[in-house]
């Protein structure tokens, strides 16, 4: 199944594009890192405030930063897709079969589900009633802590993609 998916991704022509323009991969890397910083700076900052850091900043107002985090996420999804579909050595399969990449994708899905929990279980609405120095309720803190742990782990496993052999060694696989 991964083979079929890899072959399909290779049909997008990104490998040829990356080969034709040697600046494209480094450019995508720069965007990927800036997108990452935007995501942590906005969503991560909101998480830190919910956990009780930076009191004086109203939580409901900090939520205005979230669209910027979504913009970073979209930029990283696009550039991330280009890395996978444009990977010359080993093709897209090299990513799809890479354990660190697989873990990263699963962690991103979990972070997405966690974000949905924040907005669709009423926790976000509860935040609107809190004052600038108020402590957030416990359920909100659990969601915020999970968000931080998940996104930081996404960064870590993203960095480990290049060092998958070391990860496999560490896990004894």
């Amino acid at each position, binding site marked *: 199944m991964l083979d079929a998916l890899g072959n399909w991704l290779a049909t997008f022509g990104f490998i040829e594009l990356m080969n034709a323009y*040697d*600046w494209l991969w*480094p450019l995508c*890397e*720069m965007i990927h*890192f*800036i997108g*990452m*910083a*935007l*995501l*942590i*700076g*906005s969503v*991560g*900052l909101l998480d*830190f405030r919910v956990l009780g*850091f*930076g*009191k*004086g*900043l*109203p939580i409901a*107002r*900090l939520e*205005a*930063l979230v669209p*910027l985090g979504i913009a970073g996420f979209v930029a990283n999804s696009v550039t991330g897709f280009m890395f996978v579909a444009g990977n010359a050595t080993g093709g897209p399969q090299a990513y799809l079969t890479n354990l660190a990449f697989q873990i990263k994708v699963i962690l991103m899905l979990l972070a997405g589900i966690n974000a949905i929990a924040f907005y669709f279980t009423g926790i976000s609405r509860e935040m609107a009633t809190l004052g*600038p120095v108020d402590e957030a309720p416990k359920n909100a803190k659990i969601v915020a802590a999970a968000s931080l742990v998940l996104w*930081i782990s996404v*960064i*870590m496993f*993203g*960095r*480990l993609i290049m*060092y998958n052999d*070391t*990860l496999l*060694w*560490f896990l004894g696989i």
Partner: protein
Amino acid sequence: MMELLEFVEGTGIATWVRESPSIFAYTLVLSLHAIGLSIVVGVSAMVALRVLGRFDGIPLQPMAKLYPLMYTGFWINAISGLMLLSANATGMLQMTMFYIKMGFVIAAVITLRVMRPKLVAGHAAKGLAMALLALWTGAVIAGRLTAYPYFVEAWLGI
């Protein structure tokens, strides 16, 4: 002969190459460097955008409370950066792009420091905020480019 081979296998270097715990340490430090970057650059960007008048629903002065968080990100990267540098000192110190990156980082941190009292006083230092955004962007771009020395040499000749 076998004794000699066993002796070689038992030396510190061989054990290190074979079991390479320090390589795993290296990848962890590399991860920390990306995490610290996200915190210091990401939160700096939010503070700078607020100073520039974006997201004006967020009160300006309390943004100064984010300095400990930004400095935590900075120190994570100062320490992890030194560790990464020691692992590849000759390679990095021969790269012009590395010095360009450090120039951006130092200028960004100075800008951040200068901005703090102004923020505490509730003054929107827009010039500093714009400089901060530009300097961090430069630092990230130059930092990423240190991973592509051949590309930098081909395109920029440095």
